[in-house]
């Protein structure tokens, strides 16, 4: 985890340098941040039952508390939604605010409709996929010719991704937990 703050410090420094008008640089060069440092990528083969998940959570809490991410989020990807629910609770135990993100077709049963999916208009998303259009712009929210088009099920809170009841725009290929302080 120690490499993460160092990486973002290098990226931020490179971006600041790129914005410095006094510096002689190519205005069409947009790759300054990319050249500053390569993101640390680490794979750890850790045996079952040794506590890798709980250690990772603790390390994330420390990283966020240290301010090493400078306001950026941590995304914790798990293979199933029920594990995501557990992670959210576990992060809350560490004093972190975490949100669970699910795909549009994930179940979201309610008392009125036990078959309800996360997206409240899944037919629209299937239509968009049939003609290979981006679902976000075709079904959720788009500004076209100065006019804002919204899904009929959208609320301002849902659009910003904060509502627990209306989540038509949430999309991810795997269950995700995003957490921040």
């Amino acid at each position, binding site marked *: 985890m120690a490499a993460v703050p160092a990486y973002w410090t290098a990226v931020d420094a490179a971006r600041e340098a790129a914005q410095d008008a006094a510096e002689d640089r190519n205005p069409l060069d947009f790759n300054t941040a990319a050249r500053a440092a390569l*993101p640390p990528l680490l794979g750890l*083969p850790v045996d079952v039952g040794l506590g890798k998940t709980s250690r990772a959570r603790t390390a994330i809490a420390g990283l966020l508390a240290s301010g090493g991410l400078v306001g950026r989020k941590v995304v914790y990807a798990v293979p199933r939604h029920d594990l995501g629910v557990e992670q959210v609770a576990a992060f809350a135990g560490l004093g972190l605010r975490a949100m669970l993100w699910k795909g549009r077709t994930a179940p979201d049963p309610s008392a009125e409709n036990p078959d309800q999916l996360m997206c409240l208009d899944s037919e629209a998303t299937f239509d968009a996929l049939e003609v290979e259009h981006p679902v976000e712009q075709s079904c959720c929210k788009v500004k076209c010719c100065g006019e804002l088009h919204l899904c*009929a099920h959208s609320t301002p809170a849902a659009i910003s991704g904060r509502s627990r009841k209306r989540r038509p725009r949430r999309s991810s290929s795997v269950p995700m937990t995003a957490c921040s302080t």
Partner: protein
Amino acid sequence: MKPEAIGTVGLLVIDEAFWQSGLRGLDGKATLTQDGLEPGRTSLSCYGAKGRIDMGATTDLVAARNRLWKALQVAEPGPLRHGLLEAVGLTPEDCRSAATLERRRMRDAGLLPGMSPVERRKRIDKVLPPPGEPWAPPGRCATLWLILAEALENGQDAAGAELGHERTDSGSVRALRLRWRSRLRAGWAAEAPILHLDATLRPELVQTYLPLIDIGAPVTARQPHVRIRQVTGSPTSARGLTPGPDAPERDRKAAASRLRDLAAWIALRARQCHRPGARIDLLVVGQKAAIDALRATGLPPRVEAVHFNAARAASTAGATSAA
């Protein structure tokens, strides 16, 4: 695509193996019928930004499709052969260019959020060929070209494009079955540091997605008293024990029967492992859904059952035997 509300990702932690999630077409549903790839189809037109036909791009795509069509006419069932692809004059550059052109076949249907289903269908019908006409979806065709490009670059047969027969309402037709590996979505992982945790991490599988990843030394527990017995061929997958709600009735019946057998075996093993005074005789670790199903059937006394991600909690509780 990453939702805007998440903001910039400062660290991506991937807990458990993910490489299988990127494999596409393994269910055999990503197919392209040979008829749909015929170069003379009216649906083989590339469009510009304003929805007008781009004649130059269309001609280039027809030329590439003609070469592919020649190969398909003489190809035998199985993966498309490298020698055949070369013989018809396809190059990796041609294939990559054709992949780009294929995506330009799909016109903008003008779907907007909040549109009524009737209006959506009307607009979709305008950009798709009439019902009954063979249709090769542009995105899938682009994938085919990229599979061929990779095969040609590596001097290999195109294992991800396998010619076979597909059953349709009109009978059996020749079709290409596609299999490929997708990439990590750039929105999630483009600039962010990544920590990947997996008990069974295999570098050769992970590095296909993250070529620059450093793989740390394996962390294992000392287990001087552990004896491992692997039962091969037993139905222990999550789907085999707890099929989804959409699974056929026969799969659910089979799963119920397997769970009964497993519960009986657990009861037997718990008796074998029983030691006077021990708080727990047997620890069962498995997939969460399977463990929940076993708990629902009622486990014998002094048998602890936990799912994989909760194994640590069980180990700290001082379990004595594991199944």
